[in-house]
């Protein structure tokens, strides 16, 4: 988005064409048309993601969790990210607003019935971060004013204490570990590595469910998440596995 993105993120706008905005701030912009989108030819989903395999995935060299079940974005128009206070985000991203049964694990291709027809996708990010904007854009879904829900399953070889979830997100987000809120990121923010860390938590031996939601108005949506040990080092001896646990009981 270039340097003008900082204006676009903070100022209420109906559309996001920041390069133009830098020249004609606050002049009415034409609606984003289908023709305009075709001309820009968004990159395909395979640019940033790959379909998951049968094999469990391990965190990458830096510990980032790349395998996620991602729900197509829920439209939640917000012309500005400055509304993302703790109070707002806790209400917008909660058990009650989760599209489905909060305590169950969605399956790839599962449809969510509601006002909007949405589908879960099981994907491996090709990058250290998870580019939700690219995901939405490739599927022809809304890119701005959206909520993304994600779920992943971490298979731990043993109980691990004093673990921290380290999250960066654009913009605000909330994250649950095994049903309990672990990390919250509020306000208008960009994704950076290890932005907000959870209190010390315990990973169970075997399956652990991490569920998260990112809310964004204008701008790119994305997140990164890894688990750090007491010394701050990435934890890598984990498997991300949507199938049955391969760990002995």
């Amino acid at each position, binding site marked *: 988005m270039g340097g003008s993105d900082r204006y676009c993120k903070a*100022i209420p706008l109906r559309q996001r064409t920041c390069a133009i905005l830098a020249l004609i*701030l606050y002049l009415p912009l034409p609606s984003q048309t289908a023709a305009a989108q075709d001309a820009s030819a968004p990159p395909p989903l395979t640019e940033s993601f790959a379909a998951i395999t049968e094999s469990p995935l391990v965190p990458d060299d830096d510990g980032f969790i790349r395998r996620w079940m991602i729900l197509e974005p829920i439209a939640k128009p917000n012309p500005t990210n*400055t509304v993302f*206070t703790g*109070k707002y985000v806790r209400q917008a991203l909660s058990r009650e607003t989760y599209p489905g049964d909060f305590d169950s694990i969605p399956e790839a291709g599962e449809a969510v019935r509601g006002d909007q027809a949405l589908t879960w996708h099981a994907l491996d990010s090709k990058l250290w971060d998870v580019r939700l904007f690219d995901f939405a854009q490739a599927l022809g879904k809304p890119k701005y004013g959206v909520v993304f829900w994600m779920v992943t399953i971490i298979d731990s070889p043993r109980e691990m204490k004093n673990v921290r979830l*380290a999250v960066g997100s654009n913009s605000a987000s909330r994250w649950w570990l095994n049903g309990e809120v672990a990390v919250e990121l509020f*306000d208008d923010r960009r994704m*950076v590595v290890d*932005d907000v*860390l959870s209190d010390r938590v315990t990973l169970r031996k075997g399956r652990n469910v991490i569920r998260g939601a990112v809310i964004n108005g204008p701008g790119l949506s994305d997140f990164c998440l890894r688990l750090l040990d007491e010394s701050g080092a990435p934890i890598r001896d984990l498997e991300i596995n949507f199938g049955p646990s391969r760990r002995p009981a």
Partner: protein
Amino acid sequence: MKEALPKARRVAIIAGAIALSQAFATPALAQLEGNVFIHDPSTVVLSDGKWYTFGTRGGGLVSEDGWTWSDGPVRPGGGVAPDVIKIGERYYVAYAVGGGGLNGGHASEIKVMWTKSLDPGSPDFKYHDVGTVASSDGIERNDAIDPAFLLADGRLWLSYGTYFGTIRIVELDPTTGQRLAGNDPVDVAIDMEATALLYRDGWYYLLGTHGTCCDGPNSTYNIRVGRSRDVLGPYLDHMDVPLLRGGGKLVSAAHGRMIGAGHFGLIDLGGGVEKFSLHYEADMDRSGRSVLSIEPLLWRDGWPVGGSNLTSGTYEIQSERSGNALQLKTDFVRIGFDARRSFMANPGDPVSPLPDQSLADNSAVWPDGTIRADLSAYMVRPNQHWTIAPVEGAGGYFGAPYYSIKIAGTDRALAVTADGGEVETVPRFTGGDAQLWRIDQLTDGTYRISPKGQPSGNDTALVAIGTSTASLNRFDPTSDAGRWRFYPAEPPR
């Protein structure tokens, strides 16, 4: 420079002062407490869980925390200005007998003895004489007093001397404390006394005191330094002036109510915290008496510099890791502002000042009870301003008092969570240990913030574990994550 008083009179005056020291002056905040009356303190060393320093004549001071001091054991041998170093199981003690202008003379001997404990209650407490390791004959241009040890790369060195001639260095045997056979003294400086030697990063540092001693609030004592790649010199200052010609870069001088800084001694507490002991010839809040002080030691461009404890005030607390400010983790409160009008305004349109956000506006969204603290971009907001002050009666640790850290204009105080693992704020400051903080200046000038209850060796501190997250974690001196800067902030309106 010329001594205002010969060392003999100094000794008499100091002895009298120490004898009278039972009637302690009211301790001032941000200074050491208890009996801190001493002159020419030796390097502070740890023995049997307590910290010891010895002064001129036999008396010394002892402390369990480096903050509150009391009368220590009497060192045998008398004399002036001892130094102590621990090598293996032995504490070697060097002290001078004679000289210092005693009866107008400068004939003196530096003697060494050792003991395995400085605690008279220990079965290992027993002094063994080593003998004389250096001397001056009263005619030569040297006065063998004020010894100071340095152990570096397995070799033991001793500097000594005063304004009467030169500062000299000799080499001792670290296994016996005796002078190495055939070793001759080497002149390394003039216009110095109360020297100390340091070794760091391939440099030898010779510190010593310039100025006039022993004249209370009129003493001009100040600590200077030169350095050399060779322990035997030549020592030069930052302007390349040889210490043998009177050079010396300033390390510490009078400040505030403390006059006449002298007799440096390194205290390396580990974990990136270095401090130094010294005496001030006059503490203006303690009748102008000579007192022990412990202050932070900084290193800048390869030179030791005296640091300072944080003074009371209202500050932004900035993380050296992320540059973000420590703040109450509360909902962001916007300042009323019409962005559209601002961007559309013409250059010539009139402008007027916007008021700062008030504490009342900011605190309107604060929940009751405890509130966590996190890090965010500094926005000059009331939830980012902390009033920090020493807590009277709370004690301290090695020259730094325990502080309260409160949101400015409120009684809401930074505290350790009940489980001891995280940091939060509580609505009311009660003075409990969980609400008291050590703030130690580190060698680079930044600060470490540690909760009270840090026994020696425990290195838990406030650490930026993420860009926007602060927690209590092990302090890593090689990382910026546990380093903080304090920038003065306007008090809330």
